[in-house]
């Protein structure tokens, strides 16, 4: 895994005054499934387009392997793209769509036919060769777009929100399908999405992006368990952030409550911070709780959703959301107004920056 397929070095992209991508550096190892995740306008698609060759970086370099491709047009780069709108050629048959790249690269007809057949088989579309794109359903068109890119055996496959246009059920199915295909062909996938669940399900490495920068880069569990910024904590799932000041290994809230921080989560921070704890890591208890990992509060509202009960609890440290698994039979729901003690394992906490006014 040590070989690097894509390298961005201090890459910046400006459109006039607007900085779309702000000094990004990253390395994507060979054979990995890499996701760029963020809200619209965070620069993820622009970054992808710079790797694909559709945008030229204002500053910095893009490398594929050891080759500097910053100034090369798309047709001189060993990457292929699956576009958001699929961008299938409406005037060509499915076979000609998939074989387009092979023909441009001068692959002889016999080999072309064989490889197109293999690619269609890979995406489970054998027998659709003579159809036109508009004669297929959305999900099938998506798979044609994938086959059209993969058939060229590129060094890197770029996917620009490839599942965005599909309905939820089909999207779930395609997520698993994409993951399977990636493992089968072993090509590096770079995937752009605004759907955190999609990124978590598929990717080995996720770069969470915001306002043209990478907020945090890591594996799905790392990003979820130890988000480094409030943005990441909020973008991947739900989290409770409790403001306070760091005192040794404790966070002291405004009302004087001391809350312990996991040793590995300190990360050299000092002063004003926020302590984070995910709703599903909190237990609702009645009795006393260990100091340093508990808050006492009043239930304000609840929502019983069968598999779990969600509470909003008012505590001196602010509003806390709790996601209580209904694992035991005969579920007792704490009614609004009930005083409860919320406890958690200090190991489950994380720290992010303090609130900026």
């Amino acid at each position, binding site marked *: 895994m040590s070989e690097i397929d894509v390298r961005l070095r201090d890459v910046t992209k400006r459109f006039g005054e607007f900085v779309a991508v702000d000094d990004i550096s990253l390395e994507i190892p060979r054979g990995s499934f890499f996701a760029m995740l963020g809200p619209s306008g965070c620069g993820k698609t622009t970054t992808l387009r710079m790797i694909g060759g559709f945008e030229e970086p204002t500053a910095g370099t893009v490398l594929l392997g050891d080759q500097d491709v910053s100034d090369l047009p798309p*047709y001189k780069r060993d990457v292929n793209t699956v576009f958001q709108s699929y961008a299938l050629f409406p005037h060509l048959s499915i076979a000609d769509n998939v074989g*387009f790249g092979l023909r*441009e690269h001068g692959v002889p007809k016999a080999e072309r036919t064989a490889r197109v057949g293999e690619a269609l088989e890979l995406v489970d579309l054998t027998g659709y060769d003579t159809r*036109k794109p508009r004669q*297929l359903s959305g999900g099938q068109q998506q798979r044609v777009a994938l086959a059209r*890119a993969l058939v060229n055996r590129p060094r890197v496959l770029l996917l620009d929100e490839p599942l965005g246009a599909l309905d939820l059920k*089909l999207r779930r199915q395609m997520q698993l399908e994409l993951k399977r295909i990636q493992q089968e062909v072993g090509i590096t996938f770079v995937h752009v999405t605004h759907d955190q669940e999609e990124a978590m399900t598929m990717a080995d490495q996720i770069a969470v992006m915001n306002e043209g920068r990478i907020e945090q880069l890591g594996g799905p569990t790392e990003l979820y368990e130890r988000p480094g910024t409030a943005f990441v904590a909020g973008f991947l799932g739900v989290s409770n952030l409790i403001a306070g000041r760091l005192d040794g290994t404790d966070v002291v809230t405004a009302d004087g409550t001391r809350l312990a921080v996991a040793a590995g989560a300190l990360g050299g921070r000092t002063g004003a911070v926020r302590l984070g704890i995910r709703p599903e890591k909190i237990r609702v208890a009645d009795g006393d709780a260990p100091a340093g990992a508990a808050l006492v509060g009043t239930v304000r509202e609840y929502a019983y959703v069968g598999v779990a009960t969600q509470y909003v609890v008012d505590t001196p440290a602010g509003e806390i959301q709790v996601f209580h698994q209904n694992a035991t039979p005969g579920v007792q729901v704490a009614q609004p107004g009930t005083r409860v003690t919320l406890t958690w394992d200090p190991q489950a906490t994380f720290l992010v920056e303090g609130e900026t006014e």
Partner: protein
Amino acid sequence: MRRARRFAGHHLLTLVALLGFIYILAPIAVIALFSFNDPAGKYNYTWQGFTTQYWQNPFDIPALRDALITSIQIALLASIIATVLGTLISLALVRHAFRGRGTTNLLIFLPMSTPEIVMGASLLALFLNLGVATGFATILLAHVVFCIAFCVVTVKARLVGFDRRLEEAAMDLGANEVRTFLRVTLPLILPGVGAAALLSFALSVDDFVITNFTHGTVVTFPLFIWGAARVGVPVQVNVIGTLIFLVAVGIMAIGVLVSTVRARRDRALAERAAEAH
């Protein structure tokens, strides 16, 4: 009362539409009808008797035949030149931001909005001042001028809705700029380009006013009819007019038929594909 109104609503529209069609088609029907007339004298204005004599030899007046050939030559050349230039101009106007794009966009419509009589007169003045002898070349030049405007409008309409991602996809798959144009852009705008060419051809074949100013001694089909009208239009003109109409309608009918059949098949296949999920 309500039923009566609904009846009127349904059938009145049909009736009005029918009257409209009669109004439009009556002159053409008269032309076709009189192509079978057997006029007594020079004038083909009153019905004398049925004959297919002129349909058997529509080209036996040499001057008429030559005029028709000249018209077709000019129309072919003018539509080819105008379509190529018009397509390139629309590509530039839609795809590239350049200094003077707005002005060009405006000026390109000038030949469409200028009265033909004014344009014809000023073209003649121009050719005279430049010392260019009027003839085949000047007719061609004049026709290209007014055809370009129509070509630009037609092709532009096709380009404005063009998905640029298709071109990006082609480049992504290894096609350079020229290959991308030939394999993706051109095939996709071809319906617009074809329409522009047909429109140019029709405009050119039909033009009288501007041609009348720029023709010198060359005679085109409309000029021949104009000249003949004073001494009596030969029946062959009706025959050729009807032929031209039939060819045009035939081309249109084929186009409509093909696109209807294709659309129906695509819909059926896409529905079946969606159901398979």
